[in-house]
């Protein structure tokens, strides 16, 4: 009887170990596979020309990635400008001012936002944000645009990163000890004074981590941005210009990949680029968050 149990134990252990190794090797497959596939592109032109080149014309053999890097940066930057203040204020409100009942209602609602499939954000963006920009926002600045712009992408992205930013910020703010706030209040400071000078300062590393993590999420978002950003391979010079972030590049052109071998390599390189950027951002924010967690117990 005992033997059967032990055998089962070992069997399960071995099988799971195998599964574990296979799953972890995916990281290797991604990194190595993409790099290997990109090699033809590296042989064709050096990395600086690739990253800084402005012209994207694969048919003519020109692979300048700058428009896409710029597009990704533009859309992400706009989304951060919108999301960061909104999320900090909301997170502070939820932890410092809101009643428990309100908090318990709002947090799940915000998390539902996270469950909505990206394509629905794209649909909403096309339905509402694009016309909004075309008909109302742009005219204020005297600009004529179709509405398909990096601004549209930024707005849609901002809403998509609300849940992750708010939930991490709320978590971080909740770790601040009450007595610290009491110390500030006892000196005659208002709650808002305390928030400005004590709480936000103490929570700064965590807030930064939340932002970095949300940024890496924003970098990788594909379909929602693709549907509203215009997909024009030029470096955007104003927020009303169309843009072409890296994920959209990959998504739109994989069909054409087969015709030009270098094209496939270029798209694999884009994926590699994305992977590396996101990997670095993720690492930074995890390190910050882990150090924060350790500091609390220390």
């Amino acid at each position: 009887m005992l033997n059967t149990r032990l055998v089962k134990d070992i069997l399960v252990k071995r099988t799971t170990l195998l599964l574990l190794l296979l799953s972890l090797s995916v990281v290797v497959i991604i990194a190595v596979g993409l790099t290997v596939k990109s090699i033809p592109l590296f042989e064709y032109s050096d990395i600086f020309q690739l990253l800084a080149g402005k012209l994207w014309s694969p048919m003519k053999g020109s692979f300048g990635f700058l428009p896409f890097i710029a597009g990704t940066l533009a859309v992400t930057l706009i989304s951060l400008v919108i999301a960061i203040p909104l999320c900090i204020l909301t997170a502070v409100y939820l932890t410092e001012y809101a009643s428990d009942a309100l908090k318990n209602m709002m947090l799940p609602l915000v998390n539902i936002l996270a469950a909505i499939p990206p394509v629905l954000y794209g649909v909403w963006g096309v339905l509402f944000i694009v016309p909004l920009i075309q008909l109302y926002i742009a005219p204020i600045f005297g600009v004529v645009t179709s509405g398909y712009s990096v601004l549209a992408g930024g707005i849609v992205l901002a809403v998509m990163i609300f849940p992750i930013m708010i939930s991490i910020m709320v978590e971080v703010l909740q770790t601040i000890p009450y007595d610290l706030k009491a110390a500030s209040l006892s000196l005659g400071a208002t709650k808002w004074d305390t928030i400005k000078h004590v709480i936000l300062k103490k929570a700064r590393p965590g807030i930064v981590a939340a932002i970095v993590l949300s940024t890496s999420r924003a970098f990788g978002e594909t379909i929602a941005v693709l549907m509203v950003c215009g997909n024009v391979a030029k470096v955007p010079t104003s927020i009303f210009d169309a843009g072409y972030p890296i994920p959209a590049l990959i998504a739109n052109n994989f069909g054409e990949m087969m015709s030009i071998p270098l094209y496939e390599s270029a798209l694999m390189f884009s994926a590699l680029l994305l992977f590396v950027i996101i990997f670095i951002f993720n690492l930074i924010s995890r390190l910050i968050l882990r150090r924060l967690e350790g500091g609390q117990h220390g």
Partner: protein
Amino acid sequence: MDNTRRRLLSEKVAKVFMHLSGITVTASLFFIVGTILYKGLPYLNWEMVSQLPKGGFYIGKEGGILNAILGSMYLAGVSTALSALIGIPISLYLNIYLGTNSKITQFSKLLFDVLYGVPSIVYGAVGFGIMVYLGIRASLLGGIITVTLLTIPIVVRTVDELIKTIPEDLKNVTLSLGTTRWELAKVMLRSVRTGLLTAVLLAFGRAIGDVAGVLLTTGFSDNLPKYIDEPAATLPLSIFFQLSSPIPEVQGRAYASALVLTIIILIIVVCTHILQSKQKNRR
């Protein structure tokens, strides 16, 4: 006195902005769902969910999106089942067999963090590469492979969090009865049963809504998914294609399809909430 009044005023102003922010954030949820409801409801009818797209569907003729509904269900269902079968044991192995202090566990968790953060488009690109290498054409199989890989880190992380909530005492008491670690794992699994279900549901929701992963690997088809090596339709892609049509009727149907997807997601979310409150009540 002046200083105090100024500070109190700035607090009041700050509170106004905080309220506005909170309202903006929560309102956007209702806004999105509401817009889709508003635009999609007029076009939602029995025909849409029960029929396949007939010839000319995308330019206004009859039909429905049954191909996409079933295709998505099938794809997400199989992928979620696979990733759960793989991910749950892995998480148990890391957290219970090896324990959270083991170097292997910490290293693995780091790698899974990386995998979790990789966007689905990259999985799509890699999946595509694998398919080319193995000689598989764009099909349900390709999509299943890609989405499974995509979902495994999500399952592992969610189960990790779940295991963290199991009280130490349960583990100690069970071990002291002389169980093997596998039996311990079974006991712990039972104690977080509802949590596991929630995790699987959430993974399913993620899988069904994903576009970038299936775009490059699953292809598209107007037929029902029958064979695993054939291209299959998925809801997000169906929405996308219908939306690209210039004909308002078709666009309207795109919103209806989006509504169908939204309803599926909302059902999942409601189920997870019910499960979670059941879990809380039991505690």
